[in-house]
C-alpha cells in the first residue's frame, strides 16, 4: 500500500489554480520532498493531504484512506508540523506534549510514557520544563515536530520545517529529521535546495501548481542535464530541460 497517493489533485481559488492536476505516489518509509518557490502549491498540497482543505478536483489518499470521504481515519494516521511553530506559548515543552497526548485520547500513563519517549528522542531534557515562548527557534521547531509525532502517525508532514532558522539550528534539525527516516513516511516541503538534497529519497519539483520533475536527485539531474539540485531546479524552472 502506498503511503500517499494523489490522482489529478487540483485546488482552485477563484481565478488562481494553486495545485493543478497533481499525480504523486509516495512509498511507505520514504522521505519525499516537495520543492518549489513561494506560491508553487506546496503548502496547498499538504493542506489537502491533511484534510485541511478540500480539493476542487481529483483525489488524495493517505494509507489508502480518502482525504475527502474518510477524514477522521486520515487524521488518525497523520501528524503535521505547520510552517509556523504552532505550539502553545505559555505551556512548557512537557505540557505541550502532554496536551497533544490527551488530544489523541491517551490515558495519563500512556501520555507520560509517550511524552518522556519524545523528550528523549529529541534530546529536549534540558528544556522540558521551559515555557515554549522562551525557547529558541530551533527548539520550537523540534517541539513542533515532536508534537506532530505524538499520535504515532504513519505519515508525517513537515511544512518548511527549517524556515527562518540559523545554519546551526537547521543542521541540528536535519539530523533530527534524518533520525526519523525509514521509521515513518515523511512529506517535506521546502524551498531550500540543500535541504531537499540532503534529506530526500525522492523529490518533486513543483512549478505553478504542477509537477515539473519527479525522481531521485540523480534522476532530476539527468532530466535537467545539470549537476546539483539548485542548478537542476533553475533549469527546470526556466524550462531548459533535456528531453
Amino acid at each position, binding site marked *: 500500500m502506498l503511503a500517499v497517493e494523489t490522482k489529478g489533485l487540483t485546488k482552485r481559488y477563484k481565478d488562481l489554480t494553486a495545485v493543478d492536476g497533481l499525480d504523486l505516489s509516495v512509498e511507505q518509509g520514504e522521505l519525499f520532498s516537495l520543492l518549489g518557490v513561494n506560491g508553487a502549491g506546496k503548502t496547498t498540497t499538504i493542506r489537502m493531504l*491533511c*484534510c*485541511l*482543505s*478540500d480539493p476542487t478536483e481529483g483525489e488524495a489518499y493517505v494509507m489508502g484512506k480518502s482525504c475527502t470521504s474518510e477524514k*477522521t481515519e486520515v*487524521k*488518525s494516521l*497523520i*501528524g*503535521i*508540523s*505547520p*510552517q*509556523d*511553530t*504552532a*505550539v*502553545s*506559548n*505559555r*505551556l512548557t515543552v512537557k*505540557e505541550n506534549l502532554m*496536551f*497533544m497526548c*490527551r*488530544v*489523541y*485520547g491517551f490515558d495519563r500513563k500512556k501520555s507520560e510514557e509517550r511524552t518522556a519517549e519524545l523528550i528523549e528522542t529529541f534530546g529536549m531534557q534540558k528544556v522540558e520544563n521551559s*515555557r515554549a515562548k522562551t525557547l529558541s527557534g530551533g527548539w520550537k521547531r523540534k517541539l513542533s515536530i515532536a*508534537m*506532530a509525532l505524538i*499520535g504515532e502517525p504513519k505519515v508525517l508532514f513537515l511544512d518548511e520545517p527549517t524556515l527562518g532558522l540559523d545554519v546551526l539550528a537547521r543542521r541540528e534539525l536535519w539530523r533530527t529529521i534524518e533520525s526519523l527516516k525509514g521509521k515513518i513516511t515523511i512529506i517535506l516541503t521546502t524551498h531550500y535546495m540543500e535541504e531537499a538534497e540532503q534529506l530526500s529519497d525522492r523529490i518533486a519539483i513543483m512549478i505553478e501548481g504542477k509537477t515539473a520533475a519527479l525522481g531521485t536527485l540523480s534522476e532530476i539531474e539527468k532530466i535537467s542535464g545539470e549537476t546539483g539540485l539548485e542548478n537542476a531546479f533553475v533549469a527546470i524552472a526556466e524550462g531548459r530541460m533535456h528531453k
Partner: protein
Amino acid sequence: MNRAFAFSSRNIRELLRDPLGYIFCIGFPLIMLVIMTVLDQSIPKEAVTVFHIEKLAPGVAVFGQMFVMLFTSLNISTDRSGTFLMRLYATPMTASDLTVGYVLPMLIVAVIQCLITFVTAFIISLIIGSTLSIAGMLASMLTLIPSALMFIGFGLIFGVLFNEKSAPGLCSIIISLGGFFGGIWFDAESTGGMMLKMCRFMPFFYCTRSARAAMSLDFTAKGFFIPLLVVAGCAAVLISLGCFTFSKKMKADLG
C-alpha cells in the same frame, strides 16, 4: 468530551500565565470597587447612588465579566492568527471540542472573578460598617452565571470573526456600552425618558438589575425573574451564535 477538557486545561494554563489577565480580570474590578466605595463614603449618606456597597458589588461583578469577554476574544483571535488551531484541525478534535474548550475555562475564570469581587466587597462592607448579606451575595453570584455566559458569547463571536487587533477594540466598545447602559455607574432606573428606554434596550441593564435584586433578596418577577430570563435568553442566543460562527469559520478555513 475528553478532548474538550484537554483543550480547556490548556486554555486555563494560558490564561493563568498571562499577567494581563490578572490586571484586567481581577485587579481592575477590585480597584473600581475600592475607588467607588471611597467616593460613596465622601458623599452625603442620604444621597441615592449606586455606590453603596450592596449595589456596587453586583455592578462591579458585571463590569468584571466584560473583561472576561475581552480575554475570550483575545484568546481565540490569537490562536486563529497562528497555526496552532490548524494543527488541532488536523487531529481528531471537532469544532464542538474546541468551542467547549474555549467557553469552559472562561466560565471558570468568571466564577472565580465573581467570588473574589464579592469576598472583597464583604471585607469592605465590614470595614465601612454596612455588612453585606451572605445569602444575598450567594444568590447574586448564582444569578451572574447566565450573565457571564452572555459576555463569553460576545467574546466567542468577536474572537472568531475578527483578528487579534480588531477584537479587543470591539470588546472595548461593548465594555463602554455595558458600563454606561448597564447602569453600573449610575442609577439607570431613576433617569427615565429616552435614557431609560435605551438602557432597557440593552441586555447589560438586565444583568445588573437581576444581580442587584438577588443581592437584596428581592425575588419578584419584575425585579429578578424577568431580567434574569432576558439575560439567560441573550446568553443562550449568543453562545449558540458563537458556536455556529466557530463551526462555520472552521469549515471555511478547511474549505
